[in-house]
């Protein structure tokens, strides 16, 4: 029942919000619907149904569902004030606003559907819905740059999604002899229980397609080209959910398929593939960070880096590394979206996203400035925040299994740390520059994320640890 609720609320939201003209009412309703989805996802923790042919809720996806709906809700709250200013300045027209809110709910619907679907075809359709919603939202400002970003995202995302679909077909074909024709051969739980009977050679090639397809969506190197543009040119709430949530959903899809491969003793080892893509993403993104002049692009590259770390962690496998991967994913989502919340207001206040034109934020806007400092230090991996904890766990499990690769990863992390700090000093300290507009802002979403990552860095409650441990054992 609660499972239906997390799908139903966004659906009603899409219909209702595309009709309402007043931005006050529609942005409030957007937050309300996101909150209702979040509340139902909390209830899902208490009581969940057993797996059917279409839907499944298990230890693995509940982590993702909860995180998605929480960040979805806080971002809606942030977007309420952000959008109010965009309407006032005329960046977004009344028609675009209806469209924006409708698409926001459709993105949440797509992500929730992808996370809880047990059918690999349905999962693909859901990820397509989520992708299309974001493509349309990235282009919403209609500037030349936004159109370019949106077109690039669409074409590359379309190619990715096509490859993933081909991979999905191949999974079905490999399962058909063992499970039989029809829907049951597309149900993930059935695939897992028959994993050792699946056609191995088809399974291997299918996974390569899945990895390339969903890997494009997850922004892994060298398939990341759409990501920085899409983050920089769209509205900031969209950058927050893109980085914080949609990349996770794509990675989740890869993990589901990886579990099928892991359950078949003769199949390809998915780990090394994920590890090499992850490591390449970390090193590439870390070096690219230095040359960035646009602050949203900077953090978009940082998202590539962190997706790399997460892919690397899941690639190593084993209980500790999977635990670290899950933890890092949650911490990255919370931290990165909070950073985007801060940047959203900052770019509205200063009317620019150029790093060179931003300076002395801690002096001129203490809450936002110090918030950004806290966020950047957290994402760079400084203790005692949560990201430090998870990065430490990733590194230590990597040193145990592949010391050479772990050393490379550590190099990447340090290079990225340096770049972020360099940019941070420029933006946060020194003489305040440029104009300041008064912007309606709400710091609660940002501060609540910061509180969570701080708590997670210092003390994780034992039953959360138990829960994550259980999940990481599931992952193999």
């Amino acid at each position, binding site marked *: 029942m609660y499972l239906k609720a997390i799908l139903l609320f966004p659906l009603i939201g899409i219909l209702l919000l595309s009709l309402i003209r007043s931005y006050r009412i529609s942005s409030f309703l957007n937050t309300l619907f996101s909150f209702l989805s979040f509340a139902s996802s909390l209830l899902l923790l208490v009581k969940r149904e057993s797996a059917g042919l279409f839907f499944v809720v298990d230890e693995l996806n509940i982590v993702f569902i909860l995180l998605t709906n929480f960040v979805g809700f806080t971002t809606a709250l942030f977007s309420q004030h952000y959008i109010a200013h965009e309407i006032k300045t005329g960046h977004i027209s009344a028609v675009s606003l209806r469209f924006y809110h409708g698409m926001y709910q459709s993105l949440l619907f797509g992500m929730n559907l992808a996370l809880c679907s047990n059918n690999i075809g349905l999962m693909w*359709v859901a990820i*397509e819905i989520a992708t299309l919603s974001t493509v349309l939202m990235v282009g919403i400002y209609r500037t030349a740059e936004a159109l*370019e970003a949106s077109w690039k995202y669409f*074409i590359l995302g379309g190619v990715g999604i*096509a490859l993933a679909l081909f991979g999905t077909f191949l999974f079905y074909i490999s399962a058909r002899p063992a499970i039989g*024709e029809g829907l049951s051969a597309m149900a993930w739980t059935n695939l897992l229980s028959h994993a050792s009977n699946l056609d191995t050679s088809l399974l291997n090639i299918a996974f390569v397609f899945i990895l390339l397809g969903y890997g494009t969506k997850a922004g892994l190197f060298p398939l990341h080209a759409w990501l920085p*543009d899409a983050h920089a040119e769209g509205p900031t709430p969209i950058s927050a959910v893109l980085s914080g949530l949609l990349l996770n959903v794509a990675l989740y899809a890869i993990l589901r398929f990886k579990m099928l491969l892991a359950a078949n003793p003769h199949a390809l080892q998915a780990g090394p593939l994920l590890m090499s893509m992850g490591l390449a993403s970390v090193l590439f993104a870390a070096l690219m960070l230095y040359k960035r002049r646009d602050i949203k692009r900077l953090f978009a590259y940082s998202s590539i880096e962190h997706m790399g770390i997460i892919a690397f962690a899941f690639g190593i496998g084993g209980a500790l590394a999977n635990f670290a991967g899950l933890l890092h994913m949650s911490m990255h989502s919370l931290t990165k979206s909070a950073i985007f919340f801060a940047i959203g207001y900052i770019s509205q206040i200063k009317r620019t996203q150029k790093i060179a034109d931003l300076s002395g934020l801690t002096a001129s806007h203490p809450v936002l400035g110090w918030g950004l400092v806290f966020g950047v230090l957290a994402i760079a991996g400084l203790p005692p925040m949560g990201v430090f904890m998870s990065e430490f766990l990733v590194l230590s499990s990597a040193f145990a299994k592949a010391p050479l690769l772990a050393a490379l990863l550590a190099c990447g992390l340090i290079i990225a740390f340096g770049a972020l700090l360099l940019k941070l000093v420029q933006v946060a300290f020194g003489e305040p520059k440029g104009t300041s507009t008064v912007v309606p802002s709400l710091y609660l979403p940002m501060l609540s994320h910061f509180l969570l990552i701080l708590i997670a860095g210092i003390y994780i409650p034992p039953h959360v640890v138990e829960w994550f441990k259980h999940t990481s054992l599931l992952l193999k």
Partner: protein
Amino acid sequence: MNHNLYFDITHMLAGSMLLVSFVLLYQDRMFSLLNVYTVHALVLVAAAAWQGFVQQAPHLYATAVIALVFKAIAIPLTLRWLIVKLAIHREIEKVVGSGISVIAGFFLTALSITVMMKASGGTDPMTREDLSFALAVVLIGLLMMAGRRNAISQVVGFMSMENGLILAAVGAKGMPLVVEISVAFSVLVALIVIGIFLFRIRERFDVVDIRGLEKSGGER
């Protein structure tokens, strides 16, 4: 009819689709590109209907009808209308020349046949050949998207890739959700077509050439 004939017709339809993909590769006029794409879609319609008959699966007829209405009629007509309206029916500028892209297409076909034949050794021959042809069509669609500068021909490349995917889906026996997937894809394509118009690339840049977009792009 005997089993061989079933097999041969399936084979012929998949093969024709690949052939039409090659024809798409060297088109250098907008309208002829659209005409060839219409043929591509019609071959898909025939392939889906034929599979519906062979597998005795009525839902594949629905897939065929959807493909006919959307891909063979609605989308080419809309694109044609767009081309006339935007006055862009001149030659298509290519990044890669026709000869080279056809040769690259041969290599991609050889690659997909080698890979898929080997990987799908355990399945029946019909699925195996269908899959290798479908993969070749998908890869040639990709090649076309990479080799064209023009937004409309990128869309045509995308749609031919998508036809390859549907070909793979109808060939996989008992594959559920084929109808749903083809609907989802058609919606997707309809969205792009509207998108081209809505985003008014031409209005911004005076050309539908995506080079206009690239120039305006900031740092990468």
